[in-house]
């Protein structure tokens, strides 16, 4: 046995580990398994969704640290979609270039399809998946055409004023207290609404690390 100093021993160990690494496969750790209890806890803890007004805030603040996926039919997408959304059908999701370290926000018309897509992505091992609570309908009801509050307390009025500003930003307008039932007849803003809204390009990912 040659007489080696501590440093030299460490160097030898590092070299051996480095040599062994040549046959190693680090992405072996990338496998998926579903933990039913964990999924149940996520759903119960309401950590699986963002609300439509929250999403509106993100867009207005120019946040780009998430991918917004619209899983409705392409005709519905072409008519109107939430600014910044990418149109992906559920059947295309497994092959769609999403990265597992991204925050992914899904929405569908009502929310059921998005919830199914959420489960699909969870099963594929994507940890940061969320749905828009209430889906596209909630976007219409709560962001584009917020209803005036029935009670006129200062708090609810202040909140409504804010909602009004948000609606105006996205090209919508609030509806009056008596107009609740007429949602179907409300015209959606035309598609060119998406152009004045400045959504920063997706290129800039969230900066992490040093």
């Amino acid at each position, binding site marked *: 046995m040659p007489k080696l100093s501590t*440093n030299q021993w460490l*160097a030898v160990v*590092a*070299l051996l*580990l*480095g*040599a062994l*690494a*040549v*046959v*190693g*496969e*680090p*992405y*072996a*750790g*990338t*496998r998926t398994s579903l933990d039913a209890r964990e999924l149940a806890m*996520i759903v119960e803890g309401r*950590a699986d969704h963002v609300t439509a007004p929250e999403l509106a805030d993100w867009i207005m603040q120019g946040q780009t640290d998430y991918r917004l996926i619209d899983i409705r039919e392409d005709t519905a997408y072409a008519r109107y979609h939430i600014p910044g959304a990418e149109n992906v059908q559920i059947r295309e999701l497994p092959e769609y270039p999403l*990265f*597992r*370290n991204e925050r992914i926000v899904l929405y569908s018309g009502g929310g059921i399809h998005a919830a199914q897509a959420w489960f699909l992505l969870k099963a594929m*091992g994507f*940890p*940061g998946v969320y749905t828009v609570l209430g889906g596209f309908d909630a976007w219409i009801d709560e962001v584009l055409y917020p209803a005036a509050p029935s009670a006129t307390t200062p708090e609810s009025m202040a909140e409504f004023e804010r909602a009004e500003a948000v609606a105006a930003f996205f090209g919508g307008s609030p509806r009056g207290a008596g107009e609740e039932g007429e949602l179907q007849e409300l015209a959606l803003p035309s598609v060119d609404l998406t152009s004045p809204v400045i959504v920063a390009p997706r*290129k*800039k*990912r969230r*900066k*992490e*690390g040093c």
Partner: protein
Amino acid sequence: MIAPFFKYGLFGDEASLILAFLVGIGFGFFLERAGFGSARKLTAQFYLTDLTVFKVMFTAIITALLGIFYLSWIGWVDLSLVYVPNTYLAPQILGGLLLGFGFIVGGYCPGTSVVGTATGRFDGFIFLLGLMAGIFAFGEAYPLLEGFVNSTDLGPITLPEALHVSYGLVVFAVVALAVVGFWGAGIVERRFAAR
């Protein structure tokens, strides 16, 4: 339990800030113990009389490299969830040159200036003020610089991808480079320190 813990939602934002604080203290402690609070020791690097910085940094790199590689291999770390920052070739080369220039002139790099300040060194404190002023100036000038800062974007590319070799081969090459580097550093130090 698989890492990265934060990405798997094992702890939230607040807990991650507390952990970052503890890790930061540990980082600073070991920098100080390695002698990195002294501008003399740091600049000795560039005059080849004391290559401690080179050795400590390279040791840290191969320790982390081997650790992450093996933890991923046995399945304790999900490497596909570890954030890889984008490579912006031209701005990063220029930034590296600027940092090196500032390192030689000022005697510190950003982290070590904080260590120097914490141990009561006045030069470290002044360097830290300059650092803050630089960050502020960069922020104010960002609209002018934005085009260049985001230019030559190669995406989140890694060495195995760029060189089309296996991950393990890169690990071995970097470790071998480090060991040869340590051996060479010893020779260089003996020669230049004698002068």
